């Protein structure tokens, strides 16, 4: 059966890899990005490559509400991937605008959007799947990106609760915690090879996780071990570390 798949933040490298894998299966893709200009190549690409139906919707987390977006959609999606994210300028305390943007894109807008989708799915009795791309950065705040980390921590906690709430309605909610990803967001950063996944790896892990009905997916299993260790470093030590 053809599914209607909504991808929020469709321009991200992970979202693009994911959209291609879903389109390859013949599903219908609904993409959102911040501008028509950004959507155009994404849609054209899916249509030429896979000859599938693909629709685009302009959605900017900072400008539009979840309701704005939901009103544009031609129906209720069967599968939703929230892949938007904003890393921001880390270790800066003097940029409130950027801080607000980090919190909004990674947390509040993402949460309000998933709320709206969940509500619609329950109302129309769609037994869908919601996937939130969170981050290992949310597992413990570090000085190098605590705003991003805090937003992702909030998002992960929200997804835990949403999973619980969706269960009785047959709606599955999955949390994805990729570690480092080789992508536009991390271009120019020196990333440790064995700990770094490609966007394609992340996308495949998401699809595998959905098939198996996983709650939380770490793309590279080593990350669950690393985060276990990091979570268990005593605070007296942790606060002195350079992470």
């Amino acid at each position: 059966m053809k599914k209607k798949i909504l991808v929020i933040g469709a321009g991200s490298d992970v979202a693009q890899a994911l959209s291609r894998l879903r389109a390859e299966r013949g599903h219908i893709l609904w993409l959102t990005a911040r501008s028509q200009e950004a959507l155009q190549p994404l849609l054209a690409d899916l249509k030429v490559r896979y000859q599938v139906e693909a629709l685009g919707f302009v959605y900017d987390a900072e400008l539009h509400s979840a309701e704005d977006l939901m009103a544009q959609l031609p129906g209720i999606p069967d599968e939703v991937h929230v892949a938007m994210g904003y890393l921001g300028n880390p270790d800066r305390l003097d940029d409130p605008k950027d801080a607000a943007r980090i919190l909004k894109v990674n947390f509040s807008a993402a949460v309000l959007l998933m709320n709206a989708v969940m509500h619609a799915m329950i109302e129309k009795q769609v037994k869908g799947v919601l996937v939130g791309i969170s981050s290992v950065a949310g597992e413990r705040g570090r000085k190098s990106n605590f705003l991003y980390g805090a937003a992702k921590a909030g998002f992960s906690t929200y997804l835990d609760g949403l999973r619980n709430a969706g269960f009785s309605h047959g709606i599955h909610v999955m949390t994805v915690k990729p570690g480092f990803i080789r992508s536009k967001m991390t271009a120019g950063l020196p990333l440790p090879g064995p700990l770094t996944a490609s966007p394609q790896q992340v996308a495949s892990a998401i699809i595998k996780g959905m098939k198996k009905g996983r709650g939380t997916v770490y793309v590279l299993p080593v990350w669950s071990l690393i985060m276990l260790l990091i979570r268990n470093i005593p605070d007296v030590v942790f606060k002195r570390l350079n992470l």
Partner: protein
Amino acid sequence: MGTPMSALTKISNWGNYPRIEADVRPWPLQTESPQIARGMGRCYGDSALSTHIVDTRSLNHFLDFDAESGLLTVEAGLTFDEILQVCVPRGWFLPVTPGTRFVTAGGALASDVHGKNHHAEGSFSDHVRWFDLLTASGEICRCSRTENTELFYLTLGGMGLTGIIKALAFYLKPIETAYIRQHTLRCENLDETMAGLEAYGHWTNSVAWLDCMAGGRAFGRSILMLGESAKQSELTQAQSLNPLKVHSTKGIPFPIDMPSFTLNRFTVQAFNQVYFHKHPKGSRDSVVHYEPFYYPLDKVLGWNRIYGKRGFTQYQLVIPHADARKGLQEVLELLAKRKMSSFLTVLKIFGEQSENYLRFPKAGFTLTLDFGISASLWPFLNELDGVVERYGGRLYLTKDVRMNPDFFRRTYPMAQEFMEKIKALDPTGKFQSLQSQRLGIHA
């Protein structure tokens, strides 16, 4: 996860020489400093190197395909590999392809790549309808044979020096099957090789693998390979089960950098001997898939590591028909005299030249030699340059890593004009490469 900052990356192109530290950033442009676009880095030398590099591989979207005319519109960072995966099952093929499918469409345009069909179908430029170019002024210009014509011909084969190619439209050619009807024949010396290439000029694809080590009566012997897109009726029963089969996307990674001495006169000679005699005297006909026909080396991912850490370069020359016989003989004799060996030596025939400012192909013979990097290589190549120039030839910029500026200016007749136009287009030199600096295009 930390700050997106400037981080230097060690980078080289396909020849693994030179290897430099550069600030590599993904598209879009993030700096005003002199920079050059780089896609798959399949040029051999320093064409896609600069202190700042714009990685165009995120421009990897198909934009349109018109199944009536075969006009394909893509972003410049999309690779030929991906294009084939999508287009072959629908009965379309690249109009021109180099010996690797791991090149981007933008790179193919900037290098004006040619293939085994140049004498019949021209180079990649000839099939380009239009492209969008980001110029030094920050504008995106649509260029074609009727719009911004000068910029069009400056950019085709222009080595990325006019700006960043963002998207392009070119015509694919229809195919009935993904197979090639191949005719292979053994040529016992240089005369036979050259006569063969000329006599079989009516075949769309032709290429001669040359044994550059053979001397005496076998001097210039070769295996001549000809190919024509196969018709459905020509396929074997097994092949016709899936006549539009795409190439396999699995390759065998080349495991390690071989020690630099792996390829020497003796191993190359032994290899050539075996390869030549693997082919029986006379000729053979077969129907093969396009993958082994066009891309025999792509099967081994990273085959360039066979040259070891020292790296290698290709020396591709063209000599016009009139003196080709004498010129090629002199080149090959000089090779023997200086005890140099080329692992892969390929001879092809070129058709007419294009309107491009930096056109490499011209009617004649083109010989490709490759050499491991060594101190003794540079004086030897300078000597070869002398022969090439004497016979009215020139060298392919995409493979070049050492040509000197005077030789470039003397052998590329429109070089001076190209430089003046570039200067006017991009007065501050926003787009430059190590190659353009070496060739004196940028001071």
